[in-house]
């Protein structure tokens, strides 16, 4: 015991124990938040790009840091002021995600090619259970043939 120099001071031991537990907690937290999450981005041509993100990062962070080539992604830099980070998820993944806030829904509504499992990438935070997840980059433009068809019908 540092204070009273006796060998069995409960107060000092409990303080020491608390410190040890705290340090362990921090270590556990630190190590678990570093868990890597494997992601597969598939674009509209079917081309797959695989990258690893870190738990706690948003999908926008991953796209930016890992230089995933998606035209015009994240124009508003994650401030819920656009819909350019729109991504499409597998049903099982989508269902496990936290529900969307109104803010996100308002912007997602304006996204092109919206689906039932669409989310804004800047609002999706990586969790360990997302390891191996496939994310589809939405079709941002109509197929040129569709555009032609529409025009000829007008």
């Amino acid at each position, binding site marked *: 015991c540092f204070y009273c120099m006796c060998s069995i001071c409960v107060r000092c031991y409990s303080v020491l124990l608390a410190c040890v537990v705290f340090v362990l907690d921090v270590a556990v937290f630190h190590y678990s938040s570093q868990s890597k999450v494997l992601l597969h981005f598939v674009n509209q041509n079917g081309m797959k790009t695989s990258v690893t993100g870190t738990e706690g990062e948003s999908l926008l962070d991953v796209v930016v840091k890992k230089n995933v080539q998606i035209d015009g992604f994240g*124009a508003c830099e994650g401030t819920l*002021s656009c819909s350019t980070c729109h991504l499409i998820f597998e049903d099982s993944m989508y269902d496990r995600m936290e529900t969307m806030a*109104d*803010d996100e829904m*308002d912007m997602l509504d304006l996204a092109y090619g919206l689906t039932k499992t669409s989310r804004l990438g800047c609002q999706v935070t990586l969790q360990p259970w997302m390891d191996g997840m496939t994310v589809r980059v939405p079709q941002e*433009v109509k197929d040129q043939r569709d555009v032609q068809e529409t025009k000829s019908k007008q």
Partner: protein
Amino acid sequence: MSTSYSFEFQQYGKLTIVHSVNACNLPQARHDIVVDIYERLPVPFGLVRFGVAPDHPEVKNVINTFTQTAHSERFYFHGNVNVGMDISVEELKEAYHAVVLSYGAEGNRSLAVSGEDLIGVFSARDFVGWYNGHPSNKELHPDLNCETVVILGQGNVALDIARVLLSPLDMLKKTDITQRALQTLAASRVRRVLMVGRRGPLQIAGTIKEVREMINLPGTKADLLPVDYDGIAEALNDLPRPRKRLTDKQAMGIRFLRSPVKVLPGADGKRVAGIRLAVKKLEGSGEGAQAIPTGHTEDLECGMVICSIGYKSLPIDPAVPFDPRRAIVQNNLGRVQGTAGLYCSGWLKRGPTGVIATTMNDSFDTARIILNDLEAGTLDMSIHKPGAQDITALLKARGVREVSFSEWEKINSEEVRRGEALGKPREKLLDVEEMLAVAWS
């Protein structure tokens, strides 16, 4: 001597720069493309600078992406060049493999009612240009000494204007709204803003985020008539509940099924005192619903009328085929009709609607079309084109001096410096001469 393709984009809207993002960041094959943007003002970015509301700074983050592109060594900005006046589209076509027109829509759809010319009637574009520091609107001097302002239109622009008119000054003074506008708003007597639309609540052009902002604006109560929402309970559920606060001294209201018939003058015959509206009823539903006259009219007292009924593109060069009815350049998927090597993009191509993301995607479309044409040989890359070299020489001979991107960055630094002194992100220079003096200093 490299065979370089030079694209020229006459920029009025921000999307030409986005365009070149696609052109410049192409994988492998296209390292030989050079992009030149010609812009009438000394400053770039178009509507991102002059259209986006001052209290939506996050929307302007896209400027960072544009700036990144602009720093590419195959990109050049040529500000202070008026295409159509200083240089013709034909001359540009001679100097470049491809020319893309994306100068947006600077005109307004006309109200076409009597009284449109009275003092106190403004186009939304001019009013927004005034608080956003557009050089051509600096002498607007709107008189906010009246209690009620009527805005015709219910799109996002109308919602922005209503919000700026009624926002607490504490919120506005931290934005990049011009100091002049801030001072005018500080002295404003406006307490009520009514947004009037032709059709019903389900046809409103504004998007939900902006409507939500309106309803939650501090100090302002939402003035919505229950009768307007009869029979559309589901739509009502989607709208956030308007919170009635007794202390709210201001009101922002929406009126449906009203269409302007006449702007009414006051006693002096020169200034707006009210507006006469025709009462409509809705036939059909959804996007195709039509507003049919009922024969009744209604008069609203107001001191200002702002027309926010849509923008319109203007022709800048007789050599470019223009469709006056749709007010767009005649095109097929962005290829200008009847001529090779000329393209259009954005609002000039599709009409003036859509948010940034919509127009951005359209830019990518246009870029793909150009690349298709390059690969198909429709654009002949074997011919040497002089590009900016010739154009700059021509301009110089005509006494026109350009502003480069790094010169714009001097203007940018000066604006940020002036803003710092006022606790704002920037204080925009309002005067083209002043901009040029800073750019060329």
